[in-house]
């Protein structure tokens, strides 16, 4: 007779609890993207969000974790200048040989499934009101099955970016506590690629290049999504710090405090900027600022003091607010959800903030000593260069090829009719539709 199943020790159980919060971030992003889009595309956007989460989980299960791996697991190596560079994990498809028992690798696989979905949700905001459901599903499979795991291996799977410290003396190697690079910056850069490939919405720009305002249809959804996302980010940042940076479970309190401080500072900074410039605070830009603060917090939240986290947030709010305007007015990029500014700019700033502010634990030290490492900023810059110089061309190239084979933008008729009726056959708010026969005398 077998005894009771062994209980998980405290740390894996706590880590699992944090990971189970992550879907709330996905729900928050889906609500924000939907609220900032048009009413006639709301159902299609929520449906796309659900499909994206489903396809990402399956693609990551099939091959994603095999490519991402976990530190100290088999990997493909290149020798460059006499140093080993791990560039791709050598795992098994379908999570074969991963003990699903609370081991760090199994927790990383679960977190990866959810993180890949979160990454794939970000471009939906940039493609709102014109991105076909089928196209975004295939694009998600490419992102979650190849692009995300490849870069995540370099950062979280013991790959060459993580080895920059041991191989070349660049601090502790590239550090990303909660996914500022792997999730936020990658999602934001993919959003930029999608916005470029799809082009702006019909009627967004006039003949002389001036943008027209197409306001989001539901600010309540957007602001509720912000609060929901905060809970998800707590899970994301805490589980990432424990799993990939060897932080003690007690770090969760610091992570939670720093995460909310960063988001709050960024949201208030955005509200103040818009109030100063336009006379009234802007709800959608404040939401973008909040999300930018969350994205920036993911870089260093486990390794900075609360005051530094608040400062990181303030700058994130300023950068994101200015970036939204710059993208719309100067660069003519139509991004209804503000995904590029909030996630790409916020995420890249979060990555850089590690090099500027983080006090990282000394390697192989039993004492709780932390210090700023010389060369850490350079490791972070190498990561940023990799995101812009490798990830952006890769994700653009894959989506461009997809667009050749299967046009990603909806037809002119579909855009006029609205994505809900054209792709789903029913709208999100049928009771709000005005029927002419209701006003005719019988």
């Amino acid at each position, binding site marked *: 007779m077998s005894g009771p199943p062994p209980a998980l020790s405290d740390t894996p159980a706590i880590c699992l609890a944090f990971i189970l919060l992550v879907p709330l971030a996905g729900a928050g992003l889906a609500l924000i993207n939907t609220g900032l889009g048009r009413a006639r595309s709301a159902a299609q956007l929520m449906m796309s969000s659900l499909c994206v989460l489903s396809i990402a989980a399956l693609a990551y299960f099939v091959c994603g974790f095999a490519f991402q791996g976990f530190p100290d697991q088999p990997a493909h190596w290149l020798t*460059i*200048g006499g*140093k080993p560079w791990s560039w791709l994990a050598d795992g098994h498809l379908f999570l074969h040989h991963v003990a699903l028992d609370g081991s760090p690798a199994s927790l990383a696989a679960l977190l990866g499934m959810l993180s890949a979905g979160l990454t794939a949700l970000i471009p939906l905001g940039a493609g709102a009101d014109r991105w076909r459901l089928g196209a975004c599903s295939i694009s998600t499979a490419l992102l979650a099955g190849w692009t995300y795991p490849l870069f995540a291996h370099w950062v979280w799977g013991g790959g060459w970016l993580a080895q*920059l410290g041991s191989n*070349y003396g*660049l601090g502790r190697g590239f550090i990303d506590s909660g996914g500022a690079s792997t999730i936020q910056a990658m999602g934001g850069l993919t959003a930029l690629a999608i916005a*470029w490939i799809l*082009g*702006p*919405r*019909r*009627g*967004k*720009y*006039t*003949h002389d*290049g001036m943008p027209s305002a197409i306001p989001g249809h539901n600010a309540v959804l957007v602001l509720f999504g912000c609060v929901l996302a905060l809970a998800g980010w707590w899970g994301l940042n805490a589980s990432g710090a424990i799993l990939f940076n060897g932080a003690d479970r007690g770090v969760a309190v610091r992570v939670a405090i720093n995460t909310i401080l960063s988001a709050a500072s960024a949201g208030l900074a955005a509200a103040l900027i818009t109030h100063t410039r336009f006379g009234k605070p802007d709800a959608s830009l404040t939401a973008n600022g909040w999300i930018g603060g969350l994205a920036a917090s993911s870089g260093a939240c486990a390794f900075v003091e609360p005051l530094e986290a608040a400062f990181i947030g303030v700058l994130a709010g300023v950068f994101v607010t200015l970036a939204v305007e710059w993208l719309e007015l100067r*660069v*003519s*990029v139509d991004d209804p959800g503000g995904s590029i500014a909030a996630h790409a700019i916020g995420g890249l700033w979060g990555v850089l903030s590690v090099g500027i502010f983080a006090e990282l634990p000394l390697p192989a030290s039993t004492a709780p000593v932390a210090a700023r490492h*010389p*060369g850490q900023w*350079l490791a972070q*810059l*190498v990561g*940023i*260069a*990799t995101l*812009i*110089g*490798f990830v*952006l*061309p890769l994700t*653009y*190239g894959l989506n461009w090829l997809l667009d050749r084979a299967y046009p990603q933008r909806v037809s002119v008729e579909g855009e006029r009719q609205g994505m809900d009726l054209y792709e789903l056959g029913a709208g999100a708010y049928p009771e709000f539709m005005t029927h002419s026969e209701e006003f005719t005398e019988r």
Partner: protein
Amino acid sequence: MKILGFLLLVSGWAIVLTAVALLTEGTPRAAFVLAGIGVECVGVALLIRAHPVRRGEHE
């Protein structure tokens, strides 16, 4: 111009990787990494210019 922009992005990244792999002195390595990022910035600027609003097409 679009292809040139992407070539510059990848070239900038290659400069960064080469600096990390081949240079050992801190200052030259940092200088080349920053130079590589500078090349990437030029690539991004070219890509922005290569993606103008196709007026009339999406209006």
